[in-house]
């Protein structure tokens, strides 16, 4: 989504879609406070919902099976949408090595992760849910007490771009077809596996429906630290609809489109400014529920939390005429302008629209690059800030 942003948002949205699949819900069985006692989850596939509870000193472990190439989505959802509860996630691979850790990439204080299982990395992975303050994920040091829903999805891409590709123009776009989208009530999601060749451009076309908001996000194994894709949306006859460079984590892209009519749209993936880098990526397309409505003004990404990611999206949409009710149109004049961007900065949930995202603790951090030292510093600062925030909440005086 979008902030941890666009990725976190999309992941959260993706998580909410999955969370709606009540038929795939299981409950936590306590006694799962160590890796070896993890609750074994049935194949999680497109989405599994785990209903659990954290108490002070508690940590919950779950295990699930993944295969190389799977796109793994994990998110914690609580009834307060991260306003007060502050859980954290850590993922371990089959050898119990830490794959990724996340604290607040979701809305509010909720964590959210997206990962690509590397080649040879399949097997039984584990995920731990604990509270903020438990740096070691052993239950100590946190006093969180709340019920939560853990959403886990692990699936191979719905479509793999042929190699070498032949989709360098909109006319040659790889057609995804509606069957590519997995229907996960109330929306649909498709993960596309692609690879940018040096100097190449990829196009994928697919049907969209009027009123179903389309979210597009791109990920790659470096979490955008080194590669800089640009993602564009094209309408019928290759009409430009939207384009984005860096609204995702680091140099990754994320954007939204609002189809006003049933049509075939095309997503274009290209390099920034003539870059010649070649790298694999995952493109996540999510179609929202029919007749979806965003009622929270300024909440451009629909995560019920207004932050820098929303301002990014509103700023990027300058000059667009939008229908009534569009959350980007803060002054409701039918046109998105810099005025809407500024009006929405006043609505941000955190000062200065929240600090910038920290280096990818999580994200798609399977590169093996774990900037622990920097994270420790960032973590310390954030802890101080959070402690101050909590004190101010608890003590109205």
């Amino acid at each position, binding site marked *: 989504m979008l902030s941890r942003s666009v990725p976190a948002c999309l992941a959260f949205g993706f998580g909410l879609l999955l969370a709606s699949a009540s038929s795939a819900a299981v409950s936590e069985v306590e006694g799962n406070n160590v890796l070896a006692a993890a609750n074994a989850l049935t194949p999680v596939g497109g989405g599994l919902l785990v209903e659990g509870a954290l108490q002070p000193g508690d940590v919950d472990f779950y295990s699930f099976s993944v295969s190389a190439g799977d796109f793994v989505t994990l998110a914690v959802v609580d009834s307060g949408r991260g306003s007060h509860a502050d859980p954290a996630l850590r993922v371990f691979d089959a050898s119990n090595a830490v794959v990724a850790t996340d604290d607040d990439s979701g809305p509010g204080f909720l964590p959210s992760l997206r990962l690509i299982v590397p080649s040879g990395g399949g097997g039984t992975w584990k995920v731990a849910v604990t509270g903020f303050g438990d740096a070691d994920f052993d239950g100590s040091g946190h006093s969180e007490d709340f019920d939560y829903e853990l959403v886990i999805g692990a699936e191979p891409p719905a479509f793999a771009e042929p190699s070498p590709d032949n989709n360098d123009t909109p006319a040659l776009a790889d057609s995804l077809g509606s069957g590519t989208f997995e229907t996960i009530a109330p929306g649909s999601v498709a993960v596309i596996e692609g690879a940018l060749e040096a100097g190449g451009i990829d196009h994928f076309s697919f049907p969209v429906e009027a009123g179903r908001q389309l979210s597009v996000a791109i990920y790659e194994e470096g979490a955008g630290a080194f590669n800089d894709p640009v993602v564009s949306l094209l309408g019928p006859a290759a009409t430009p609809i939207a384009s984005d460079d860096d609204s995702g984590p680091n140099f990754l892209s994320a954007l939204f489109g609002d189809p006003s009519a049933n049509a075939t749209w095309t997503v274009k993936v290209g390099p920034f400014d003539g870059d010649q880098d070649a790298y694999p990526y995952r493109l996540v397309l999510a179609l929202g529920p029919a007749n979806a409505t965003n009622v929270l003004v300024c909440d451009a990404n629909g995560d019920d939390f207004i932050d*820098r990611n929303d*301002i*990014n999206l509103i*700023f*990027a949409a*300058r*000059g667009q005429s939008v229908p009534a009710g569009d959350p980007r149109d*803060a*002054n409701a*004049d039918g*046109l998105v*302008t*810099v*005025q809407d*961007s*500024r*009006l929405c*900065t*006043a609505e*941000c949930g955190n000062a*200065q*629209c929240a*600090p*910038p995202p920290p280096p990818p603790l999580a994200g798609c951090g399977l590169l093996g690059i774990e900037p622990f030292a920097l994270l420790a510093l960032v973590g310390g600062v954030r802890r101080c800030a959070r402690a101050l925030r909590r004190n101010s909440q608890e003590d109205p005086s």
Partner: protein
Amino acid sequence: MIRRPFVLALALLALATAAVRDASALVLSFSPTSVPANVGDSVSVDVVATALGTDVIAGFDLDVLFDPSILAPTSVLFGTGLGDPSLFEALTSFGFTPGVVDFAEVSFLTTSELDALQSEPLTLATLGFDVIGPGLSALSFRLDAANLVVDGDGNTLEVVTRAGSVGNAVVPEPSAALVFAAGAALIAARVRRARAAA
């Protein structure tokens, strides 16, 4: 005699009113106003805001129009009056289309932070151009529903714009020659007439 001072007072009052009205509007202009340049030169022009009064600028989206047969835009460098984008204090964006430089910035800083940061003249951005053709290109602002300046509360600020220019005015050689020839003919005719009279 009594009327004259009264009329004068009215005129002064009108002038003062006009001055006050103008002072309440933010002024956008180019600095320098006129940039002499020849083909092949690279020039830069600041877009500056003055007459801020008690206002702060918290966001702007501006189009600068130019003659694309004379100028080719090369860069937009944003000022720091709305915060430092590299410190996540502001968002910036710009783009070039034929004859138009579109650039925008919105600040995440509070009104009081902006107030402490901004002083006149406030440089919003520095535009870079290559001079690719002969002549003088006017620089002007286009303000409309999508191109505007807002204050810390998101209110649209009233703006007065001043045009600028880049290049060299082309001397109308044929016209000058004609005027010169006409003048010479006139003088010659007078001389002839004077001689004939003598």
